[in-house]
């Protein structure tokens, strides 16, 4: 039970300081780090400079923003590894390559091993840091479910963090991996999740509630379509036949009806932008099945014709029909795993990675 003694401001945080150790060295594009610099609800400055009563002091160690360079930056990771940076939240960005499918070298690395002079694979850092972390947050669809780099035919065998650590993995504080998907992550979705995680760390709140895909429930509970201001056109059976028209986009590639995401409702930044609400088809970029289950993106989704034709029918039937597609879209393709054999269908032209 959480006790607040009246106001958060009078509450003494359960921990005085929390470090955020952010590893961007998965197979990613740093787009989630960049995205988060655009957040305003709350902003990075708000958290780092202590704008909220009751929260512990936050030290952010993110390579895109860090003052320190090289060894001075790596020092935080070594301290975390040795248990000398406690407590810390581990944020993982980028998909996790399968380093077992090849004989030597690395797909992704961070820092240099002082003994061998070789780069340290990112997977080593995850192995070292995850057990020491208060909580582990996967940011963006690459880290959560594999994402674009885990596409069929990929050579790296990469996967999401939960595929790597195990879906039932728990932190030393008993918290499951927290997945905040999006390609990139919607800025405020991530910062807000961290904020509530910090309230939990401070002893002011229960852990953030998660769904079966480990997503924050309050952010990913509704579909794109449910929050889309073009849904009224859908209801009236008015569908865009070309890009740039104002009507519902489901016939030209929008997957909104079966995708768990709040972007049309929240906008992209400061309430501005988004996807189908501003003329961009939803390509399912928050989903475990992204990208493969949504390609080719510009074709009408299967089942879209049925549900948009049947729009006059009773809503419960529509929800049931959509439920089938939504369940498939919420499953990752079968080749995302940590076994030592690559099954993505990659066919090297002149070279075999196994030999």
């Amino acid at each position, binding site marked *: 039970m959480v006790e607040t003694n009246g106001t958060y401001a009078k509450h003494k945080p359960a921990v005085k300081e929390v470090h955020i150790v952010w590893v*961007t*060295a998965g*197979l*990613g*594009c*740093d*787009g989630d*780090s*960049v995205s988060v610099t655009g957040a305003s609800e709350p*902003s990075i*400055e708000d958290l*780092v400079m202590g704008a909220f009563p009751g929260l512990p002091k936050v030290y952010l160690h993110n*390579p*895109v*923003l*860090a*003052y320190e*360079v*090289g*060894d001075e*930056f*790596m020092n935080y990771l070594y301290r975390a590894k040795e248990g000398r940076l406690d407590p810390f939240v581990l944020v993982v960005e980028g998909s996790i390559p399968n380093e077992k499918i*090849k004989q030597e*070298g*690395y797909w*992704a*690395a961070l820092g*240099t091993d002082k003994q061998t*002079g*070789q*780069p340290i694979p990112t997977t080593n850092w995850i192995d070292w840091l995850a057990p020491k972390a208060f909580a582990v947050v996967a940011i963006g669809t690459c880290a959560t479910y594999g994402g674009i*780099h885990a596409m*069929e*035919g*990929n*050579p790296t065998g990469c996967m999401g963090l939960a595929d790597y650590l195990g879906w039932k993995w728990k932190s030393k504080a008993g918290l499951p991996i927290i997945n905040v998907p999006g*390609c990139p992550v919607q800025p405020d979705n991530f910062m807000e999740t961290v904020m509530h995680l910090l309230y939990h760390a401070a002893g002011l709140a229960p852990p953030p509630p998660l769904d079966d895909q480990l997503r924050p429930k309050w952010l990913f509970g509704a579909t794109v379509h449910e929050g889309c201001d073009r849904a009224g056109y859908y209801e009236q059976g008015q569908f865009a036949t*070309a*890009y*740039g028209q104002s009507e519902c986009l489901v016939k030209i590639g929008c997957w909104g009806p079966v995708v768990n995401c709040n972007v049309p409702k929240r906008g992209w*930044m*400061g309430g501005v*932008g988004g*996807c189908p609400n*501003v*003329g*961009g*088809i939803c*390509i399912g*970029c928050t989903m475990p099945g992204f*990208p493969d289950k949504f*390609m*080719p*993106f*510009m074709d009408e989704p299967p089942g879209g014709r049925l549900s948009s034709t049947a729009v006059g029918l009773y809503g419960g039937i529509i929800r049931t029909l959509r439920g089938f597609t939504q369940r498939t879209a919420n499953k990752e393709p079968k080749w995302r795993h940590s076994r030592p054999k690559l099954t993505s269908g990659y066919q*090297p*032209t*002149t*070279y075999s*990675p196994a030999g």
Partner: protein
Amino acid sequence: MSTITLPERVAPSERGKLIEMSWDPITRIVGSLGIYTKIDFENQRVIECHSTSSIFRGYSVFMKGKDPRDAHFITSRICGICGDNHATCSCYAQNMAYGIRPPDIAEWIVNLGEAAEYMFDHNIFQDNLVGVDFCEQMVKETNPGVLDQAERTPAPNGEIHGYKTIADIMRTLNPFSGQFYREALEMSRLTREMFCLMEGRHTHPSTLYPGGVGTVPSLQLFSEYLVRLMKYVEFMKKVVPLHDDLFDFFYQALPGYEEVGQRRVLLGCWGSWNDPAVCDYTYHNMEKWGNAMYVTPGVVVDGQLLTTSLVDINLGLRILLGSSYYQDWGDNGEIFVEKDPLGNKIDRRHPWNQTTTPKPQKRDFNGNYTWVMSPRWLDKRTGDHLALDTGGGPLARLWATALAGKVDFGYVTATGKSVKINLPKTALMGEAEFEWRIPQWSNTIERNRARTYFQAYAAAAALYFCERALDEVHAGHTKTFTDFKVPDEAIGCGFHEAVRGVLSHHLVIRNKKIANYHPYPPTPWNASPRDSYGTPGPYEDAVQGTPLFEENPPEKFKGIDIMRTVRSFDPCLPCGVHMYTGKGKLIDVQHVPMFGAAGHA
């Protein structure tokens, strides 16, 4: 010492020898980059530099066989800060392959989105990432003497930007606590909102398509953009003088600072913002519509503009391998394109004919040691494979545009030796004209200065595009999309300026699927060192031989002049996945270092 391995901290008595120093990872950039150097502290020079990148993802590999209409959605994910530049460039290449031309208003919307990207990205990089290298806290730790001098030096433009001394400017750049640092971060959000108005989401857009955009053009759309733009225009009227004061001070406080990061003038720019009246996306007319771009494409060698033709630029592209973790396609690779649509022969090492096969292995600085390949541009006059750099983007864009003298749209005029940027009156400030003049050097300070001026250029261009877009809406031209069918067989190429420099996408379609796709962003150009011909590349060339002005001894050395130099190129390593670095070189520790050995012509 035959290999570069680890930083070696030595006792003061051993000074004079070469000391290995490394910074891995380089922070305050996008992506994974390590810099490994050998430094002569007695003579305060960097003697050798290697760069390495430690991430591979494999876009060219997993895109094969996919629907070509997915290409811009996929390639946007190459880069987390300029993904939209990739999406745009991919749409350009697809437009050529599908033989289509978007409606004019779609082109203005894309131009407005890309202008917002430049305004945002240069702003956050300059003032939240690069700026930290010039902030009070950093200068205090690396050059306390310079900070003392800055305290005593009035800022010449203080009345415009409000900071009395140079030290006040440095203080306001301190991360998070500095007022201008926070103001810049806020401004980076405002400009991203402008971006989202046009392209839906940052950094991977939702509304871009081959054939046009999904954005619905309305008076509301453009008024929301314009309101934000004019705030940025006003902001730039202070920021340009602020940075001029800061950068000029470094030349004044540290005589010889112009040598930091200096290299031969070898600049490439692939042009930006198409003019819908001219651009039909055909290869046949590519030279003509390339020359109508609002930033002129060009190759500048030793101050001379060799060409402004995108056809010449395309034909000169060569992808060299060497010390990277790939299997060279050599003579075994498939030739996808023998001749371009004009009948010119396409080389085996051209991106259209490249085959990518990753081969992970141990890092060996005498052998293969990075995931990055090496693009070059063949100078037909000499047969040299030129290691062009982009000057971080703006330096090459301004230099090529200035020399070409083709751009003149009222708010911006290229004069043949300068670029004039006219910013109109805003709420609180009168009109302002900034003139960027071709500098004496291609160096660290000028790369950074050009970035600030290009922010003003992008704002001025956005204002022009916004006026043209409003003309279209007033005329009732609101159709934003041209329909198309994917052909069975086709080729396409797109040329654009990513924020930090040249960007090309080369596409081959067979049986309606992607048969080959190779994007070449700026970072492989900038970060590629010695190639198989022995030509040093931009980072290494700029860092090698650079004098060091940091006051710290080796034990406390932060490498600030090296960091400033590497960051002046605006490294973006997710874009550098095809980059590789050259072979480690045996050096004699007794050797007397030679400054300028690496090609200061």
